[in-house]
């Protein structure tokens, strides 16, 4: 028990998390602290570029094998199965209507890149290495969740899912394109590329992450007030769904043979909920769904839960499972 407390304390007392708390605090105190929107966006692009590039470089250094293929399939599988679990839970426990239950569960099958980045920083603190292709797994976890969510919402009514604007949003959205593109560039250029980029991608990384989490704290603080409208059953879903997702991720990670760090990251991916790509895509594909239900949940409940408790918890659980194996 002391081990998990130690890990949690170490997590909370790291600069990125403390900056997140500062942002939350500022927002609750209605401070005028504000990151200009364009700066926030630039910071998020920086993080995507770095995380994609690093993943690609690491993939370049490792050999392509069956484990890689299995891991990618596992990511697709998790992204498709988690919305089904979420949908049933929402219908039964929170009595949410069909369309909104489908929409919310799609958010939970997909991923939050920022949570992933925060988890890599946490693993860095704990000297736990992870497989570079986790980034590729992350990129695969958007589309299946959205498609399953749409099928759940529309059922046999046979409405067209793949409109051009939907395809553009899901497969060529700025976030995903930059992530995959940087991954590809890292993969092609490998160690040589890393040498050239080191000053840009290595040293400023933690600082930028702190700055970005400050902004996330301000945003999360704003969304917190909307949770009351969503109701207690939904708020609870935002707390227990990541634990279910995390457990699925840990089991899958161990099953396909990921390292301890990699398994933790897969758990984080399964536990996190999207608040950028999925809501934007659903706005086109499922306009009947109410974004005022899913956004506060993903951003106001699940995101801070994962940042404070989830990441160290999944790391600890993975450690225990690997000792057992």
């Amino acid at each position: 028990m002391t081990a998990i407390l130690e890990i949690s304390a170490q997590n909370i007392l790291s600069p990125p998390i403390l900056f997140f708390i500062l942002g939350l605090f500022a927002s609750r105190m209605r401070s005028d602290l504000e990151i200009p929107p364009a700066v926030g966006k630039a910071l998020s692009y920086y993080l995507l570029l770095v995380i994609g590039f690093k993943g690609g470089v690491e993939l370049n250094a490792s050999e392509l094998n069956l484990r890689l293929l299995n891991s990618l399939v596992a990511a697709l599988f998790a992204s498709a199965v988690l919305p089904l679990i979420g949908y049933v839970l929402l219908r039964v426990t929170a009595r949410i209507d069909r369309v909104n239950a489908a929409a919310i569960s799609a958010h939970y099958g997909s991923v939050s890149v920022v949570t992933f980045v925060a988890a890599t920083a946490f693993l860095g603190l704990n000297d736990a290495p992870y497989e570079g292709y986790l980034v590729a797994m992350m990129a695969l976890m958007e589309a299946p969740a959205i498609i399953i969510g749409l099928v759940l919402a529309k059922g046999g009514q046979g409405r067209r899912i793949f409109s051009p604007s939907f395809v553009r949003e899901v497969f060529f959205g700025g976030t995903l394109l930059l992530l995959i593109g940087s991954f590809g560039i890292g993969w092609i250029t490998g160690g040589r590329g890393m040498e050239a980029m080191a000053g840009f991608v290595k040293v400023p990384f933690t600082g930028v992450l702190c700055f970005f989490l400050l902004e996330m704290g301000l945003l999360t603080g704003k969304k917190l007030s909307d949770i009351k409208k969503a109701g207690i059953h939904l708020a609870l879903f935002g707390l227990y769904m990541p634990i279910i997702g995390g457990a699925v991720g840990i089991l899958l990670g161990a099953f396909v043979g990921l390292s301890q760090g990699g398994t933790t990251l897969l758990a984080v991916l399964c536990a996190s909920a999207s608040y950028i790509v999925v809501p934007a895509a659903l706005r086109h594909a499922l306009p009947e769904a109410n974004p005022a239900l899913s956004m506060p949940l993903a951003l106001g409940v699940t995101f801070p839960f994962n940042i404070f408790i989830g990441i160290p918890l999944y790391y600890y659980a993975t450690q225990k499972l690997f000792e057992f194996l």
Partner: protein
Amino acid sequence: MDLKTAKCVVIITESAIKSDVLDFITTLGVKGYTIDTLCGRGERGIRDDDALLGDYLRNVKIEVVTTTELAEKIVFTVIEQFFKNYAGIAYMHDVQVVREDKFRP
């Protein structure tokens, strides 16, 4: 040169459907428009300017100067076509223009 009266149609709606609305009014015969990005509050809550979460949370304002006939058609059909599930308002007002021909469909 005289000043002539024309109509200015203003459509304020979610950025998410910007291109759909533009495609739609283009098929009605609109040849030109002006767009701005903004935020505001309506019955669907505050539409804010958190660029971080993507532009779909913002609003766009589309302005079209045109003839009375086309302006009315735009206002009625855009409301019918888009505003059941999306946040939005559409209205029109008089404007004085010099080059009237420029704004004919």
